[in-house]
């Protein structure tokens, strides 16, 4: 494998990893936000009773 081909491979892998990381980090952030809101909602419901 030529040095150019190795670099091509590394750059392609990096692009795929970055894409997946960005999307999955966003999903995790949504999950945390969802849980925080659920807690807040439960607290509000508790206060109103």
């Amino acid at each position: 494998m030529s040095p150019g081909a190795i670099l091509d491979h590394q750059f392609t892998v990096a692009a795929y990893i970055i894409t997946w990381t960005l999307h999955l980090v966003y999903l995790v952030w949504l999950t945390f936000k969802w849980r925080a809101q659920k807690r807040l909602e439960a607290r509000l419901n508790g206060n109103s009773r």
Partner: protein
Amino acid sequence: MKKLASGLYVVVTIALMIWGFYQAVYVAPLDAMQGEISRIFYYHVPNAMLCFLFFAISLIGSIGYLSYRNKLPSRAQAADALALAGAEVGVLYCTVVLTTGPLWGRRAWGIWWTWDARLTTTLVLWLIYVSYLLMRRFAAGPQVQTLAAVLGIFGALDVPIVYMSNRWWRTQHPAPVFGGGPDSGIKDPAMLAAWEWNILAWLVWGVLILALRYRLERQHQKIADAEAQAALNA
């Protein structure tokens, strides 16, 4: 029933993402000129095309909010949530474009970045929507949603400019793969199939996270209303 449909949608989404990855990495042949680096195409181009779609959804939400805010407040709130969700998912897809593009450019052109028309207009689009999200996050007051809707509409005006940029100005970025004249399009059927699977996978995934973000914002609006009501009653 609704839970079953949602669960099924998630399973189909995951299957499509895996299948799209398999098609792009193991099935599609290498480009004769660029070699393996051309595989970035299967992630870069679908993310670019779909960021336009999500910014268009944000535009629809922004117009809806401005149309309904005085007559139908509840519908305006739903439109506002859609505008926010579309902008956020659009920024996510646009961020992928702006990070995978330079990686591809470094190997294909020998440079990370150049102030080419397509690259610059895409960066401007990303900056407009990042400022939209920052405004929504940090600004306070009764006019924030209205200002955000106006900014969202102006931001969307950049989308056709980005789309047409490499047709109007022929600089560094390659000519359009699709809709760029008689010679455009993917000729190899395996490459075309890999691209189609990936655009479908990223579309289905995008709709999933858009729906999650929309529901989250609607829930946030309901909590804010309940808090305001509780404060009035106290």
